[in-house]
């Protein structure tokens, strides 16, 4: 198989005191959907296949194989994982639908103590610790772009900001524009 190309024209790896920005690895993104009357059965089947509990609203759960499962719409889930990971559940049309969207999004990882401070310049959501804790996920808007923000802490706060792939370079430019002030004396 051909190596996947980056959605970003330039390499993204900028580290400053308290904040690091990098391109999120190209991974897999599967969408699983159900119908209103099959919600219970599909959710049960999906969480069983993933080996995890159902994700609460606005939050992700980690699957048994380390992927992230989130309910993005009332009847739709996303499963985000490494490149090549298979769809954990492929419901038949009577149960729902499934779809590969692995190439649809571009994401930047923003991590470090000042990560939220940078993101406040891009999105209008409440990123305070109590309001957007680890494994939070939300869909919002950034400069006319549908934007997903998720938090998946590593050694410290770590966020991903996701936009449609075609906006990747604009996202990168916007992040770099705001990042320039970090590490400077306030």
């Amino acid at each position, binding site marked *: 198989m*051909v190596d996947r190309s980056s959605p970003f024209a330039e390499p993204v790896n900028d580290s400053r005191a308290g904040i690091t920005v990098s391109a999120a690895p190209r991974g897999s993104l599967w969408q699983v959907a159900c119908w209103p009357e099959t919600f219970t059965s599909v959710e049960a089947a999906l969480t069983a296949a993933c080996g995890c509990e159902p994700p609460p609203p606005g939050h992700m759960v980690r699957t048994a194989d380390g992927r992230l499962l989130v309910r993005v719409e009332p009847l739709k889930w996303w499963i985000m994982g490494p490149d090549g990971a298979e769809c954990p559940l492929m419901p038949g*049309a009577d149960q*729902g639908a499934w779809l*590969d969207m692995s190439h649809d999004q571009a994401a930047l990882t923003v991590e470090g103590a000042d990560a939220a401070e940078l993101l406040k310049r891009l999105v209008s959501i409440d990123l305070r610790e109590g309001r957007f804790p680890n494994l939070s996920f939300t869909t919002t808007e950034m400069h*006319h772009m549908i934007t997903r923000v998720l938090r998946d802490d590593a050694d410290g706060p770590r966020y991903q900001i996701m936009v449609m792939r075609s906006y990747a370079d*604009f996202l990168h430019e916007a992040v770099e524009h705001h990042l*320039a002030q970090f590490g400077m004396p306030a």
Partner: protein
Amino acid sequence: MSGYRLDRGGRVDRTKSVNFTWDGTRHIGYRGDTIASALMAHGVRTLGRSFKYHRPRGVSTAGVEEPGALVSLYSGEKRITNARATTTEIVEGLEVHGQNAWPSVRFDISAVNNLMGRFFSAGFYYKTFFGITGRGTWEWMQFEKIIRRAAGMGRATDRPDPDHYETVHDYCDVLVVGSGPAGLAAAETAAAAGLDVILAEQDFEFGGTLLNGITPSVGDLGAQQWLTERLSALGSAGARLWKRTTVFGLYDHGVAGLVERVTDHMANPGHLPRERLRIVRARHIVLATGAVERPFTFGNNDKPGVMLASAAQTYVNRFGVAPGREAVIATNNDTAYSAAITLAEAGIRTTLLDSRSTLPGEAAERAKAAGIAIRNAMVPVQANGPRGIASLDYGRHQTDRDLSEDRMPAEVVGISGGWTPVVSLISHRGIRPVWNDALSAFLVEDTGLEPVTMAGSAAGHFSADAALNSGEKAGEAAVAALKGQGTVAMPAPTVPWDEPLEPLWEVRDPGRKLKCFVDPQNDVTTSDVRLAHREGYVSVEHLKRYTTLGMSTDQGKMGNVIGLALMAEASGQTIPETGTTTFRPPYTPVSIGVLAGDARGKHWRPTRHTPMRAEHEKLGCVFVDAGFWYRSWYYPRGGEALGAAAMREATTVRDNVGMVDVSTLGKIMVQGPDASEFLNRVYSNAFAKLAVGKARYGLMLRDDGIVFDDGTTWRLSETDFFMTTTTANAGGVMLHLANLLQTRWPEMKVHITSVSDHWGGVAVAGPKARDVLDGACPDIEFTDQAFPFMGVRQGHMTTDEGNIPVMVGRLSFSGEKAWEVMTPADYAPAMFRSLHQRIAAVGGVLYGLEAMDCMRVEKGHVTGRELDGRTTAADMGLGGMASRKKHYIGRVLGEREDLVRDDRATLVGLIAKAPNARFKAGSILFPMGETEGHGLGHVTSVADSPQVKSWIGLGYVQGGLAQWEGKTIMAESPVDVQSCEVTVVSPHFFDPDGGRMHG
């Protein structure tokens, strides 16, 4: 003589010198100085000129209410106008310039206006320039241009702002506005209860009245110690403390607009933005915004040297600057005694005039002990001096008149006419303040449903103890509100003075003609207010608009109440009967730059790139903005211009083969057992029986029967469809489909998902297209039999870099034999490279938007230019696609009488009649000999056609081909008045039977 630096005192850092220039002359101040304090220390008195009369203006306040000391900063593209000298910190290298004057504010030619002041009364321009020639508004419009040139304050630069700005979104439990004793107490109370607190202070230091000696101590602690302890406690509790941050507006549901001045005080700001717009969403807001001292008016009260008493006190206590050597403090209340004592203790010879007969006992004794001469029942009558004050006429105050008695030397006159609580922010929420007679001020008694609590002097608590108590209560109220603990009773305003304030708005001496300024910025005098009343402007809002009282940068922070009181007096009413003015955002001026934020230049709007952008760039592609998209336009060779390149590309496609990037098409997955029926209802043509492995062109109508969008839909399985939309309408179609599913047919088992960016795609078109693709995809056969027109196949493409999955549809927008090849976007560059090699090997080309557009015009295919929101399927010659055998969106209303008229404008082809003649898209089409009116229709698209070998176009013409085919009409461009004779022909200029794309 005038101001000078005191030997000691003040909060400025005397070890840190700061160099700056004033009108080109170098000066040195200290860190912690404002422009006003630094220039005052150098004896500079005139900093500005008034709006209308160009009278000299000096420093009259020490805060944001400053009406006169407005200056320009820097020059060229960095020029900032109307900066308040009283709040702008000096920074190394700062350039300060006088404004609204020539050649300088010290000597201003336009001051001649002052000599004609008696003619420039309120309404002068309107009264004079509407009637000279009897042509009313037209006449005014001519004079207005001249008047506007002569008026104004600073002149803004017309060059791009070199600074950058940003917007930041913040949330908190409690936003406390103001960091005086009340604000600090409120913030500390809320933070101690575990709430998330933001404390915003417009000054460059926290502390409010703790900084200037007005509140010298709190409880047993000195002001500085108490301030330090409070800030430390707040920091420990995690409160965010923002200085240099002005809350300029309050909006719905606890939203506040704040501007943070980030770098104006820095000599080397690096990459920091100049200003930050902070949008704060607070669950509760405490307004501890303080109060502004107000003056009363007397003769020449606008002269440099006249200032608020509290301002004089601030310059001494905070900045270590004496405003003059001979001072008079004139007051109608107790608070000015503190100012007088401050001046006297700084070695300034000070006299105190108190309009009241009875003096406040204790304060008066302290003043006398400080060596101050106190004269009761006395008021200033007129300031004298060529520019600034040199002497002051004063006299005895009586109920209805004041008589001049004597003259005394004076370099500074400090006025205190009472205090005006700052209620602007709560007023933004539509809450009207109420007049309080005891305090002689407007107060907000009830904030209604707003999540706002008033505290400190903004709520009428003027003493330190009362302010502190109200701040603590406000903090408790915030805690109670947010923790569901009921309400907290707020203390009632208290009168803090030993002797009551004596309302005093204007000093009058019947024997003298005094020029008394209510609004020094706009040159509004007490006479103007009375004139406005005589002329019928009895409403406060009308008064404002007629006289300009309270307009411009200070928004009447000092003068509004005086104007209102004078209007009340003239009307024979009380002040509350006369009304209040309504404050609107912003509280203080906000730069346009910070409102724009980073949405400028290349960040003005997002840009989208296809996954093959880098490949296009390597091959010298020229791009064009198309909506948000950055699309490949043409690939010039050897310096070719657009036209020549597009002509070559289109010709090569027709003769050989070409490839174009079609990734920008909207792409939507439609999935589910009802997907087929859903599409059948959405499209005007039949979709129910579309076979798996086939695609169909579809026309989508709006409910009103007008064509909304077109595209193809590929059936990938019984329940999975891949829909493409026009690039421009991708988002709109997605919303349309979602709306239908949510509101019209919620019972349908259909999921729609945008996959526009998951797929990258190219179209390979031309007689040799099959040669290019044959063998590229080992599991797809490209013969006519195996892969007929409108067929769809899924398989793999073999590239030098490996195999990639592809989805291929045999479709044609160019009219040539063509296939659209889609692959997941990350593989698109590899696909592009592979196919480009194959195309180059057979002598083919890459082609861009221009050539693609040319070929579709030759074929008569419609795009967004033809789907202009007014046309029906029949108008476009696609009436056959409007099924009469099924129900679909737009069917019924599409059959309305007006939409099926025979004489509707329908799509035709147009050919320029003369060789080399051209016409433009947008041109109006007229019958020969006519050039007026709406014509027959208009041109939608044009192209220089290599096949027709002429300039051609598409357009809509009333009567269409049936009436006009073969006839000559005129294409008139209304923009540049160009005319061109065109022949009406079929819109299908090339290969009308479609043999090339089917064969």
